[in-house]
């Protein structure tokens, strides 16, 4: 009886061993396959199609004017975490910093009726908005800080965007690959659409936690786009440009990290 049993079970044991081997091989093949697919342009484009879907869906369930959560002063983190560039080494920035940003001027141009330049004093004299919000980095960490600045919508009213302007582009001081690399412009840049540009919580901040914006957090002026991830919050803003499309600018993806493969829509 036991003999028959063993004979009957033998093929099953072989099958089990085969199956275990097949599962392990399938797992390994899947991982190798995923790595190979990650380098296949057509496949990655398919994966990236989810970004448009997510952006559209987010617009449906979270209305254009929906507000990001604002927090209590007691929830502000004692030290606001800084990330990316902590102190730009670019000569023009270093000169500005050494002068206490006295010579700083924000140039606003591109597709606008009235291009203009604003000094820090002029920006500080404009109506200000203060907001305690949570900064969410694409890496996964978050930090709550109190920002004060002028609404971007207010600046846009001053310069009067033309009808074909679809994006607000921020050009920054900090070179990401180090300023020594002459010839290749690696300065940080970012772009947002007009919905986010005109949103009440989108501000050009010059204060963090009731003090002048520190260098490590983007002094003298940084953007806050509260409904998107951290990399959309351009620091060290040098100039603002209104454009109809950004496909001819730099890597063509609308921002430094976008050119490195991150989503342009950073709301997810």
């Amino acid at each position: 009886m036991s003999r028959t049993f063993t004979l009957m079970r033998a093929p099953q044991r072989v099958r089990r061993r085969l199956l275990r081997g097949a599962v392990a091989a399938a797992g390994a093949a899947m991982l190798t396959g995923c790595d190979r697919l990650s380098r296949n342009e057509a496949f990655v484009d398919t994966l990236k199609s989810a970004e448009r879907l997510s952006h559209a869906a987010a617009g449906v369930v979270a209305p254009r004017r929906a507000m990001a959560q604002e927090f209590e002063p007691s929830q502000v983190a004692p030290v606001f975490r800084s990330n990316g560039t902590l102190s730009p080494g670019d000569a023009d920035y270093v000169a500005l910093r050494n002068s206490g940003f006295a010579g700083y001027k924000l140039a606003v141009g591109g597709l606008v009726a009235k291009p203009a330049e604003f000094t820090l004093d002029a920006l500080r004299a404009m109506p200000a908005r203060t907001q305690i919000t949570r900064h969410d980095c694409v890496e996964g960490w978050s930090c709550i800080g109190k920002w004060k600045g002028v609404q971007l919508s207010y600046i846009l009213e001053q310069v009067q965007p033309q009808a074909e302007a679809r994006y607000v582009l921020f050009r920054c001081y900090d070179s990401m690959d180090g300023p020594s690399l002459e010839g290749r412009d690696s300065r940080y840049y970012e772009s947002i659409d007009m919905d986010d540009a005109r949103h009440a919580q989108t501000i050009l901040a010059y204060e963090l936690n009731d003090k002048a914006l520190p260098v490590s957090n983007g002094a003298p002026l940084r953007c806050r786009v509260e409904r998107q991830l951290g990399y959309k919050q351009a620091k060290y803003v040098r100039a603002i440009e209104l454009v109809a499309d950004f496909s001819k600018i730099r890597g063509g993806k609308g921002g430094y990290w976008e050119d490195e493969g991150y989503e342009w829509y950073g709301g997810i």
Partner: protein
Amino acid sequence: MDIEAEAIAVATPPAVAPQSIYRHRLPVRVMHWINVVCMAILLGSGLNIFNAHPTLYWGHDSVTGTPWLSIRGVNTPQGPVGKTRLGSVEFTTTGVLGISKVDGRPTERGFPSWATIPGPQWLAMARHWHLFFAWLFVVNGIAYVLYTIFSRHLVKDLVPTRQELANIGRSIVDHLKFKHPTGAAATRYNVLQSLTYLIVIFVLLPLIVIAGMALSPRLDTVVTGWVDLLGGRQSARSLHFLAAAGLLLFVVIHVFEVIVAGVWNEMRSMITGWYKVPPDPASPEVRP
């Protein structure tokens, strides 16, 4: 035949169990395998995303929040060492967590490259994988729930009867003995199985999706402040991770049970739909 007798005749399972039954209908089979692909990719890409900041917290932010899981690599005179801290306990996890080999060299990373999609640390690409398959996963999941409701699969097969619930003790003992139902009993999900499926479908899966959505700064604005219901964004990130761990535990047990119960029969039933009913030793006439 009066009505009462007819009711008994319908409710009593046939004395002789059929040899083969059509157990899983086509939509369930298709959705099951789509789910397998989605879950594997979401887990792998999720771990790659986790690696970009391999610490989890309770609270709103990661500066004031309370860390409860942290995976890191530290340099020691003896070489790089992987450290995993869970609550107040620290484990040395060199080789798997914190420090693992990438192209033969010990490298600092949370989860090892064999567990992540893609293998190399590549946050942007992992997000593309994760967010694409998250859509497929959610659409497939909604389709499945609607199907179970409208096909009555939910009420007929997944919700246990009162009698089954009363006999849960026996089912637990049977599971611990790796004893699987035979005959007529094998034509239905057993009570532990159906309760597990219900918890996975109606607790873990909604939790992982909702906690995942809480990580999106834009979706946080749908109703301003709703993320507080999960304890804040960093808590939501922890819950997303824990729900994934729960699903992984489910998959491990599920696959184990499939192997114990008879891998070919179970696989056949999820591929072709046909399940061979294990003969009931009590009714020898159905033996082949």
